[in-house]
């Protein structure tokens, strides 16, 4: 089966695959995770402690995002963002948004919906007495969240947050629909240019597996180190 297999093809493609493709993929993953967790936390807090209207709007947003296929959202954002930008900035014509910016925006807004549900669940899992004790010490609601509730939430929810990040890492490959040079996009381009589909797609699968597997192992180890003893 491997008689036709050209390992040299992969060797020659390595610089392009990793220096361009993987760098793009990892940058997108990390920035979208950071943005998603940040925005997700804000959304969760608004949903739990904002007024009725605010929490209904947030719930609507979260449910909408979670009900749409990611691929569709990537498409929509790519075509819509230039027009939204034009409207927001009052520009005479649709603004130019790079593929990377558009993808980052999409993933951040999309993942924020998922992260906000994780964080909301985490906040609700903290016993009410914790907030009461913080309030009794004179901490304001914001201080209670910042110093007492959220630190516990991030620790208990760490495994779920990391799992979501690993899923996001795999999902970034969907940007191939925008013809961006992420890891899979690069692999696919080389494969088609050289007619070496088997080599490159196999190699790509192997790399995704290795990274995701190692990351989930590391996540497990990290979890036992930051776990809260109750």
């Amino acid at each position, binding site marked *: 089966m491997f008689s036709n297999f050209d390992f040299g093809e992969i060797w020659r493609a390595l610089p392009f695959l990793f220096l361009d493709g993987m760098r793009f993929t990892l940058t997108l993953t990390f920035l979208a995770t950071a943005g998603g967790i940040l925005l997700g936390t804000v959304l969760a807090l608004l949903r739990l402690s904002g007024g009725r209207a605010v929490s209904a709007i947030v719930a609507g947003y979260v449910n909408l995002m979670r009900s749409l296929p990611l691929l569709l959202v990537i498409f929509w954002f790519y075509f819509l963002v230039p027009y939204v930008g034009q409207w927001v900035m009052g520009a005479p014509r649709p603004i130019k948004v790079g593929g990377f910016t558009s993808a980052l925006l999409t993933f951040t807004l999309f993942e924020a919906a998922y992260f906000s549900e994780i964080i909301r669940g985490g906040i609700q899992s903290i016993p009410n007495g914790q907030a009461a*004790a913080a309030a009794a010490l004179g*901490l304001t609601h914001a201080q209670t969240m910042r110093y007492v509730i959220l630190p*516990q939430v991030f620790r208990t929810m760490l495994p779920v947050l990391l799992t979501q990040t690993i899923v996001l890492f795999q999902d970034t490959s969907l940007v191939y629909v925008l013809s961006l040079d992420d890891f899979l996009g690069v692999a696919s381009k080389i494969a088609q240019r050289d007619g070496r589909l088997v080599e490159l797609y196999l190699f790509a699968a192997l790399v995704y597996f290795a990274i995701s597997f190692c990351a989930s192992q590391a996540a497990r180890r990290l979890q036992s180190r930051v776990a809260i003893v109750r």
Partner: protein
Amino acid sequence: MSDIVISLDRVNKWYNPTFQVLKDCSLDVRKGEVVVVCGPSGSGKSTLIKCVNALEPFQSGEIAVDGVRLREKGVDLPKLRARVGMVFQNFELFPHLSVLENLDLAQLKVLGRSKDEARAKSEALLRRVDLAAHAAKYPGQLSGGQQQRVAIARALAMDPVAMLFDEPTSALDPEMVSEVLDAMVELAREGMTMMVVTHEMGFARKVAHRVVFMDRGEIVVDAEKEEFFAANGNERARVFLSKILGH
């Protein structure tokens, strides 16, 4: 009457339009006074004490703490709560912070003390409750009795004008009750103003000035300690006492 630290004036609270948990509760706690609140479960005593630092809202009447009225417009509740220490049934230490950090947190963020100032205060209080050796540990590594003493120290770190105790020993294993009560007795003897919800009548006999008996949301008895424990007191209180004292 400037020596009144906590005053409750005809406090009423409903959980819904039909269920009234507190009925016309009036009570004064003077400076340096120890008031024990007892009564059967569901009588509203925990709810009453939680109303004092506004952890529970109430619908009518008024509560004043150190001259500040809770229902007055624009009252700064966090600031008011910072001046009243509270100890909970389930300790409620912050599990992600070390013992020392538990004591430091509100001193730094609420009182605005410097790190050194807070640290010195925390360490002194931990020595006082005999837990200095455990400063770097996390709450989960301590026994229930130790955790509750940390919780008392944490409340004292704020230099409160009064301390509220909400059944501080009822979640403890029997052998740990006395170490917590001892800390509370010491506090009472130092002149701390205290309002204590508890079934520990031994504690009441030892340090209480007054005992308040609640039943079905009402303050049924509010008497000097000697009078309360005398044989000819209120009947409901007598029945309750004979039940919890086991004779």
